[in-house]
């Protein structure tokens, strides 16, 4: 590298220049508007293509939307590519969820994924059109859920007692009975499952991919394709899929040209020479890319913007498109321009600001009930930075610095930024990351264990060069960049299983015996009996979930191919294989087609510790008394509840409970991995996490001996402690989580931490946070993120100190726990921090 990162220069960039500031304010002020053009175009295309192969129909539907959707290029915008014609438009496809869209039309309230507030803005014409569109699909879609009918046929009606709408032993997108299904049912696609921004496509240009498809089609006809396609069905599938890929890629190129034309049109009418030049720059970029490789850094950024947008449009219903390793993708283009003096850090910073605004602009309507949403408030357009390559080189570069700086200055909820941290991460960069985290506030960036991520793929036989090319996806997952499909998880609600185990297999919610008889916990006379009952219930339920997962996934896979775009994004493998990534066309198709999830083991460890302490060690209570208190949801038993809450809790480096946690966590792995994943023929890839699912999961669980009340959320994230219960500082919480190598067994093993801003107000203190992160990684922790506490949280701490025992504040020469401070001082800190946050 012929230039060196200058931290001072990075920190002095101005990301939100006046024109970006103006765009941001316009966006903030714009009311969310329901956008219908895309769904109408989709339906129109679907009617036009009746009778054609389904892959062609998908591609044609994408083509029509790309060629005919309205475009919006606002004054002052540096990058082209708006999803809708509104500054803040929310669209969807009626084909995917018509009944619920119709309900929204009737109520006049349109619920949005990125916010808890509904949109009510829709023109009367659009409302009428949307309603008619929804009604058309209700008439034409299958009347029953294919997946659920498959369960019913194969497993009998009883399986529904366990699923999401009932006992909720399992949860996951595939097992919700009342879910609106629409035309196709291919839900389990997030992160690696959807089309994703592909570096190779950008670098080569889509004309190259189109050419490959054409040649392969010709070759198939000329030579046959027995090495890949066995039988006529496979042959013709591949043939049409390649054609679909060509249609989608060509449509994408034409879509970019439409943006170029619009920019040229505006340039022609523009009096301001600077703006005119900007518009011409956009036009030139959109004429060059994505058909051909970018020639400049700017063209590369513009290209990334359009890829994200088109991948988003293609995926339609689960459009969680990861942007991937942005600092690596853009680096060759930036380096060249920087060395030639054509771009400065300031230029790049402003461009990232523009990109951030465009990414955040993307919103959609969502029909999943609020309390059941995974990752509410986010569309998960994740960006991953840094990482060690196959040569052992650490890849942090100037763009890694600038991207973080842009994130901190723009302060938008999306995109989320992840940093792959290793012992080679430069300390100075880590300090910058911590500083950006403080300035951003709410847990951005998050930190992932670089070596651990790579190692898990190496363990599965992936060669090093590919194993180290992974990026964050979904809410807590990660995947190889454009080399695999990654399906959504099906999860076991472990605390629910534990609850059922305490009740002899009986579920209060459905009022049915749903598990085997393992004994009523009121009568248990030893601690071993309690644990064994839980293990026995888990051993009963786990194979049932695997069957549910397998039937659901396989049915979905068979059900819904999308346009050929995702074939293009993984062209090296999907073209010769003639299959989409989801069907097995990806480079690593045999593995981990979906996570086998487990949530809430910490709740069980804490519950067992309370039982051990209060019933068996100190004999303060009997099992019967404790169970009575739990079943009464602590009513009339407040003292027992308090005693349960005060029992040792995971997260305090307390061996009393941590040893129980170790034992339970290992046993859970053992039981869940004793089953083979029938789709892969391997032991399942385990996933432990609860980005937001902990709220829904907790809603069906009665009071547990850890002191939690009926219906309260279970623990957030995967290895965080019970809220407010990790009272001994962050090293203790990390020690509890990393004493045993769970992270090696599970993906998604995330830790949330809350920090006070005043703990991080000097470079020295930021370095201490950096050390904490590096030590977490050194101890094999997988994922850690820090909430620099918010005003609301402090306010809540003021009102409900019992929930915020772990909130540290530092003012003056001492650190103190917020709850230990006099009320007046607490109030003072609340005000002071508000002052700081501005």
């Amino acid at each position: 590298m012929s230039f060196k990162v200058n931290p001072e220069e990075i920190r002095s960039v101005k990301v939100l220049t006046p024109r970006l500031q103006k765009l941001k304010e316009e966006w903030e002020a714009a009311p969310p508007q329901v956008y219908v053009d895309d769904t109408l175009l989709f339906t129109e295309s679907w009617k036009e293509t009746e009778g054609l192969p389904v892959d062609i129909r998908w591609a044609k539907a994408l083509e029509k939307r790309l060629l005919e959707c309205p475009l919006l290029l606002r004054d002052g915008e540096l990058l082209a590519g708006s999803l809708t014609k509104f500054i803040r438009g929310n669209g969807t496809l009626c084909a995917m969820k018509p009944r619920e869209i119709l309900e929204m039309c009737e109520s006049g309230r349109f619920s949005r994924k990125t916010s808890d507030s509904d949109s009510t803005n829709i023109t009367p014409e659009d409302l009428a059109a949307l309603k008619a569109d929804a009604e058309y699909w209700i008439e034409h879609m299958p009347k029953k859920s294919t997946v659920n009918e498959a369960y019913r046929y194969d497993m009998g009606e009883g399986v529904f007692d366990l699923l999401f709408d009932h006992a909720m032993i399992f949860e996951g997108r595939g097992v919700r009975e009342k879910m609106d299904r629409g035309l196709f049912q291919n839900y389990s696609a997030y992160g690696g499952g959807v089309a994703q921004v592909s570096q190779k496509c950008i670098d080569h240009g889509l004309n190259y991919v189109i050419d490959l498809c054409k040649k392969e089609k010709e070759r198939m006809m000329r030579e046959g394709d027995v090495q890949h396609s066995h039988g006529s069905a496979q042959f013709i599938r591949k043939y049409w899929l390649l054609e679909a890929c060509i249609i989608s890629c060509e449509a994408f190129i034409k879509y970019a040209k439409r943006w170029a034309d619009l920019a040229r049109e505006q340039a022609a009418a523009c009096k301001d020479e600077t703006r005119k030049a900007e518009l011409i720059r956009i036009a030139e970029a959109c004429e060059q890319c994505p058909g051909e490789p970018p020639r400049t850094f700017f063209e590369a950024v513009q290209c990334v913007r359009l890829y994200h947008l088109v991948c988003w449009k293609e995926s339609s219903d689960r459009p969680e498109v990861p942007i991937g390793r942005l600092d690596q993708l853009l680096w060759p283009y930036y380096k060249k321009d920087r060395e030639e003096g054509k771009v400065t850090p300031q230029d790049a910073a402003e461009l990232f600001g523009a990109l951030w605004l465009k990414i955040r602009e993307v919103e959609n309507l969502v029909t999943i009930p609020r309390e059941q949403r995974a990752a509410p408030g986010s569309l998960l357009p994740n960006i991953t930075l840094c990482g060690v390559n196959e040569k052992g080189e650490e890849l942090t570069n100037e763009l890694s610095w600038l991207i973080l700086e842009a994130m901190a200055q723009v302060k938008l909820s999306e995109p989320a930024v992840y940093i792959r941290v290793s012992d080679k991460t430069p300390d100075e960069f880590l300090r910058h990351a911590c500083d950006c985290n403080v300035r951003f506030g709410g847990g951005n960036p998050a930190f992932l264990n670089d070596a651990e991520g790579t190692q898990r793929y190496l363990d599965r036989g992936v060669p090093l060069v590919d194993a180290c090319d992974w990026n964050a996806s979904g809410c807590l997952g990660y995947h190889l960049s454009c080399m695999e499909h990654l399906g959504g998880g099906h999860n076991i609600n472990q605390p629910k299983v534990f609850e059922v185990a305490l009740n002899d297999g009986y579920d209060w919610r459905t009022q049915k015996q749903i598990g085997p008889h393992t004994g009523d916990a009121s009568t248990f006379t030893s601690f071993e009996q309690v644990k064994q009952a839980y293990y026995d219930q888990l051993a009963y339920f786990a194979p049932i979930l695997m069957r549910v997962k397998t039937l659901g996934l396989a049915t979905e896979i068979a059900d819904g191919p999308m346009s050929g775009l995702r074939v293009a994004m993984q062209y090296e493998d999907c073209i010769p294989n003639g299959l989409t990534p989801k069907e097995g066309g990806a480079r690593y198709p045999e593995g981990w087609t979906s996570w086998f999830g487990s949530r809430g083991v910490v709740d069980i460890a804490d519950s067992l510790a309370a039982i051990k302490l209060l019933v068996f060690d100190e004999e303060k209570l009997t099992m019967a008394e404790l169970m009575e208190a739990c079943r009464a949801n602590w009513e009339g038993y407040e003292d027992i509840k308090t005693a349960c809450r005060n029992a040792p809790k995971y997260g305090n480096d307390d061996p009393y409970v941590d040893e129980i946690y170790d034992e339970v966590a290992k046993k859970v792995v053992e039981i869940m991995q004793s089953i083979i994943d029938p789709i892969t023929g391997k032991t399942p890839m385990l996933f432990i996490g609860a980005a937001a699912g902990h709220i829904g999961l907790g809603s069906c669980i009665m009071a547990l001996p850890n002191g939690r009340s009926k219906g309260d959320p279970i623990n957030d994230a995967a290895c965080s402690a019970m809220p407010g219960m990790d009272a001994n500082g962050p090293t203790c919480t990390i020690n509890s989580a990393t004493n045993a190598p769970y992270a090696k067994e599970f993906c998604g093993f995330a830790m949330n931490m809350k920090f006070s801003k005043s703990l991080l107000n000097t470079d020295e203190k930021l370095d201490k946070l950096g050390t904490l992160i590096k030590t977490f990684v050194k101890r094999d922790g997988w994922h850690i993120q820090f909430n620099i506490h918010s005003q609301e949280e402090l306010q809540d701490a003021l009102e409900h100190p019992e929930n915020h025992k772990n909130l540290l504040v530092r003012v003056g020469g001492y650190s103190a726990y917020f709850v230990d401070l006099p009320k007046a001082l607490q109030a003072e800190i609340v005000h002071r921090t508000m002052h700081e946050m501005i």
Partner: protein
Amino acid sequence: MVDINTVGRTFNIQRYSIADGPGIRTTIFVKGCPLSCKWCSNPESQSKERQIAYRNTQCKACGKCVAACPKQCMTLDEDGIHIDRTVCDVCGTCVKKCLPGALSFSGKDMTAQEAFKVVMRDKDYYEKDGGCTCSGGEILMQPDFVAAIFAQCRENGIHTNADTCGCGSEEAMRKILEYSDMVFFDLKHMDSAEHKRMTGVGNEQILKNLDICMHSDAQVVIRVPLIKGFNDTDENITAMCETLKKIGGQTPIISVLPYHNYGENKYRMIDEVYELTDMEPPSQETKDHVKELIESLGFECRVE
């Protein structure tokens, strides 16, 4: 020589302590202090004796402790539990009866080896500069315990920091210094009569120990709790800097800790009265001025 089986009395061990020296540290707070500073933020650390501590925020006012107390020294009113400390023999019956955990022991006895094991639990986090701090209470009251902890740290390459008010025997000071990489030395007032008025003890012995520290191998950091109307005068600050120059040996960093009243709630926990209820923290102006003054006298100054 040190004995790792020396028993000490602690009142808290703080993990991820980042205010008590460089890097990430574990701070062991020992119980018992010869001073009784009116602003003390850890009043439960002053008495060497074990005590029953009471947190009224956790109390459910069930009265089980009052009924169970064999000395009948507890009462319950609208302000919660009160303990007659002149009668209480700290038998702990009430602690056992308290399900919500509002009553607890303040003061835990452990060996230097046990304390060191706690320090070792966070060894991964210390890296080059972090480590172990012993604070109080006053470490000079338990020199054998502290020295034995530090000696074990030394053997394992863990940085040690002795946080002291300087009030104790010179022998105790030397014993601890032998194993200390750093000393946080409190200087509250240069005038002995004033010192005595606010802390109960004059400063003569403290200055003797300061001399020893300044001429030792340990890096000294001077810590000044800045109390409005007590030690924030130009006269006192100047006298302090002059004294430090006169003693020589090294030029310490001076760390100024503006007064805060975080400890106020804790006085209720042990049925004691907080006298400084009207005391205000020093103003920004004062803090800036003190920093400037110290720097003008040739010392590096940090206001925490």
